[in-house]
């Protein structure tokens, strides 16, 4: 028969959270249910069509708190589908009340996202340092190989730096909007 599993691309949760969650709902109604995270997206698997709503939470949950965390959600009708580090996706029957019911705690969610992003700022920082060193060595008498190494490192660093900085900026913007 047809395939049982499909890959769904994500625009990056920080940018397209609502769009992604709506897309997952539409897919669930067609019988494609969220299974897990994938690189830059999700895997959905074939199942019974269901009217589901999906929600993301960003929250650092310690190992010994995980069961209580999940039970809180289950008590409200939300089932945990998948997790990746601090990112947790839940599903519930359409019409279930949202996981966040007050704006104060909703902004905590986005603070958590910002905190998640912070270590990744090391990449753009590294890139900037490489370029700075490159400029510095070019003004002095430098060896060509060193210049090449620095340049390559800088350019390689640029590639992930742009999306990282963009995501970080978006996370901060969301935080400001929610407050």
């Amino acid at each position, binding site marked *: 028969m047809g395939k049982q599993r499909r890959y769904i691309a994500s625009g990056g949760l920080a940018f397209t959270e609502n769009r992604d969650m709506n897309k997952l709902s539409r897919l669930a109604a067609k019988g494609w249910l969220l299974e897990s995270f994938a690189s830059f997206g999700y895997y959905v698997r074939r199942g019974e069509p269901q009217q589901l709503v999906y929600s993301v939470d960003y929250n650092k949950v310690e190992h010994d708190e995980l069961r209580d965390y999940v039970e809180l959600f289950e008590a409200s009708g939300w089932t945990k589908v998948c997790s990746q580090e601090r990112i947790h996706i839940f599903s519930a029957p359409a019409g279930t009340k949202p*996981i966040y019911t*007050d704006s*104060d*705690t909703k902004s905590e969610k986005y603070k958590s996202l910002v905190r998640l992003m912070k270590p990744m700022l090391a990449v753009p920082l590294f890139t900037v340092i490489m370029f700075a060193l490159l400029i510095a060595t070019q003004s002095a008498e430098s060896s060509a190989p060193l210049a090449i190494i620095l340049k390559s490192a800088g350019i390689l660093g640029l590639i992930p730096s742009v999306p990282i900085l963009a995501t970080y900026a978006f996370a901060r913007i969301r935080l400001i909007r929610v407050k």
Partner: protein
Amino acid sequence: MSRGNSFDADQLTDAAYYILLSLLVPRHGYGIMSYIENLTAGEVTIGPATAYTLIKKLQDNKCIVLSGEEDNDRRKTYRITEAGQRLLHKEIERRQKMADHGTQALQSAREEEHNG
């Protein structure tokens, strides 16, 4: 770990207020949420993510502590602290006053209209 706290030590959000009320008696997460639902006859519902976040915050602010009484399934139970109780009493008073002010204002507005 600080949660980047904007928690005003003198006031509580509605959700935090209800959670604190529920913890006058030791309860665990699910118990907290069903207590609030019963207390308010279903009018106030607190989302699970909100509840989880607030439980952490209230702990950080020493308004609640882990109760140490484990229930049958070894869930974490919490209860209010003395500091939490003091805050709660202040809050109940503040909210009562607010409601009284509201009634007074409505009353005098009606009278003004009547006399005007």
